[in-house]
């Protein structure tokens, strides 16, 4: 539950980064789109956050504040946030796909 919600939260935050910036909204309008109000997105964010385990929320929000993204994918044991190669011992346990990057503190998605 936490994993799916965190992934959705991450994608929502990417969208919100666009919706909060007047220049980006202006670009969308120039392209012929009609972006709506972002209030519903902010409400959804609050709802999703409430569904994530507290410890993950803290890690996620801290990394988001610091780097602009709280969660990144892994590729061949390389964190795509800080590009540090992690040891095999950093792999998630069976049935899990989230860990923390030992280097930058972002949440890592291992799929």
């Amino acid at each position, binding site marked *: 539950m936490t994993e799916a919600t965190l992934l*959705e939260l991450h*994608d*929502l935050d990417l*969208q919100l980064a666009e919706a909060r910036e007047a220049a980006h909204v202006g*670009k969308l309008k120039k392209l*012929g*789109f009609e972006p709506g109000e*972002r209030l519903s997105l902010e409400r959804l964010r609050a709802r999703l956050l409430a569904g994530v385990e507290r410890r993950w929320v803290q890690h996620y929000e801290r990394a988001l504040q610091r780097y602009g993204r709280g969660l990144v*994918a892994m590729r061949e044991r390389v964190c795509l946030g800080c590009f540090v190669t992690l040891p095999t011992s950093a792999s998630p346990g069976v049935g899990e796909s989230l860990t923390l990057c030992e280097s930058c503190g972002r949440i890592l998605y291992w*799929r």
Partner: protein
Amino acid sequence: MTTVAVHPVPDTSLFLPDLKLKRKESVLHEMACVAQKAGAVRDAELLHETLLRRERWCPSAVGKGVAVPNARSLAVTEPRLVIARARRGLEWGASDRVAVQLVLLVLSTSEMSVDSHLERVMRAIAITRTQRNRLKLLEAEDARIVTALLREAAL
């Protein structure tokens, strides 16, 4: 100078010549699944959810029978353009009320900046600005013709 490629349809698997689906939600799901099969997406369900949410905030119909849904998502592993045609037309909520026959799905990885993503969306829209190009896309017999058109458009 920065070059941002739209990544034209690289193989037939990313070109859906005649969608039989009728609902926007089903079309987006089908396109997300096709992108996953082609190896450009790791999680079609997450991408679908992201596309639907974006659609609610910023409907992707740009008029003249064209829709350009797009997403920056953790679900995307490779930037891709997926093209689908619906000869019967789809109800997409366009402001000009024209049924959508061409759907260009622009997929960007979450590592890409908003500016790079919007640049890719802009290039995809630019392809369909002229009636000549829209007709070519609608009448193309196979993916190779579509690819050639995208290359001709210097994308």
